[in-house]
């Protein structure tokens, strides 16, 4: 956990957008741009995938990132690696302190397994990912929905190999800031999950801010 604040001034951002809970969003960042995601109201999981903007088969790899940094959680200094070993982005500021990348995204079917067979109707992150892919990222498909980052989500793992979804350690206004090390496409589902504490049982908006640096 490495807390670090940023000096960047939001008034100088080149792009500033609020993503409501339950919405999908995608945007391409060019190398050197800085992205800040702000947890506006606190404890909101932001399910996020990154792709090489020129080749979506080269994409964020949770397992390569975890292994190479020899640590389960993401925070300041974490280098987000792609499946081809490229540095996609680096986390350069973080006022939350710890972000998950083993908990994945919720889906209608996994909600059935985790909670009850009658939860299939509930809105979920994979539906958001799929809709964004079908409508705006038509070069991609479900094959490209790999294991995501959950910014602001707390999924502690114990030394004996247990894993739990815990109450968040985030709070209103906390943020994470990343610099694009290459041209990357960002795909976000602002999580609508109501069955566990990942959103404090109350999904809320987040802010997506970009600086040209």
């Amino acid at each position, binding site marked *: 956990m490495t807390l670090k604040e940023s000096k960047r001034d939001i008034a100088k951002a080149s792009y500033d957008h609020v993503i409501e809970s339950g919405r999908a969003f995608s945007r391409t960042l060019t190398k050197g741009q800085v992205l800040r995601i702000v947890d506006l109201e606190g404890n909101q999981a932001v399910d996020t995938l990154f792709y090489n903007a020129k080749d979506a088969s080269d994409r964020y790899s949770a397992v390569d990132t975890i292994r190479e940094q020899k640590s389960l*959680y993401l925070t300041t200094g974490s280098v987000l690696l792609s499946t081809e070993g490229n540095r996609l982005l680096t986390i350069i500021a973080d006022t939350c302190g710890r972000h998950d990348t083993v908990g994945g995204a919720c889906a209608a079917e*996994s909600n059935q397994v985790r909670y009850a067979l009658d939860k299939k109707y509930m809105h979920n992150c994979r539906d958001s990912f799929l809709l964004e892919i079908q409508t705006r990222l038509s070069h991609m498909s479900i*094959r490209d929905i790999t294991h995501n980052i959950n910014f602001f989500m707390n999924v502690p793992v114990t030394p004996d190999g247990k894993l739990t979804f815990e109450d968040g350690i985030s709070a209103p206004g906390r943020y994470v800031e990343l610099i694009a090390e290459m041209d990357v496409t960002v795909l976000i589902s602002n999580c609508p999950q109501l069955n566990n504490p990942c959103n404090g049982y109350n999904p809320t908006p987040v802010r997506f801010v970009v600086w040209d640096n």
Partner: protein
Amino acid sequence: MPKDTTKDASAVLLTETLRGGQMWSRVLRRGQVLRVTDTEGGAQVAALFFNAERPLERYNMPDTLKAQHIARLARHDSLFSDMGHVLASIVDDTVGWHDTITGHLTADASRAKYGEGSYQKLRNDFFRNTRDNLLIELGKYGLGKRDLHANVNLFVKVAADAGGALAFVPQARAGAYVELRADMNTLIVLSNTPHPLDPSPSYAPKAAELELRSGAPAGPGDACRVATDESRRAFALTDAYFA
């Protein structure tokens, strides 16, 4: 120790040695059981699982871990697909910890750690890496890079401390085995190649033994099915898929 469940030799459909460095794949029929044995102590077997009838459905590491509240795989744990089905379950296991969060060795990482190890010099003892092996096997089914999601690392233990720092924990033991039952018609792809966090500086993968047995789908009291409420629901969804 869990009891040995393979006394009925008539049920054995296939035995095959997986040399160090070798890859393998097969569609396991629903109910069949594959035992993978670390023959000499030190085999590290990367594994991928797909619904053979519709391989867009695949093993999903996060869904498997979060539904069962685990960060490793062991006896009576199930391997869930992204569609809420059970692709395979661990019906027996003398290992106790199989990793699924630290990925696999690539060509670049192998070259950096072990050197070139070319076919030209070493013939069939050349330094094969997990990524290339998996891609070759996936290619036989028309699958590729985009289908390569987080794998299971049989016989590999990587544990986290309270702060999340990861460490490779040696646990190799000759004769240790794990038994995977196919709970769907499941394409399984294996690569018996070194895990990237194995501290050994030399390329010396150890052999594994494969034994495939006939079997039946999980019954109502099956230990993997009843292990958790989540596994009960995933088995119910799997049964419904085959209804």
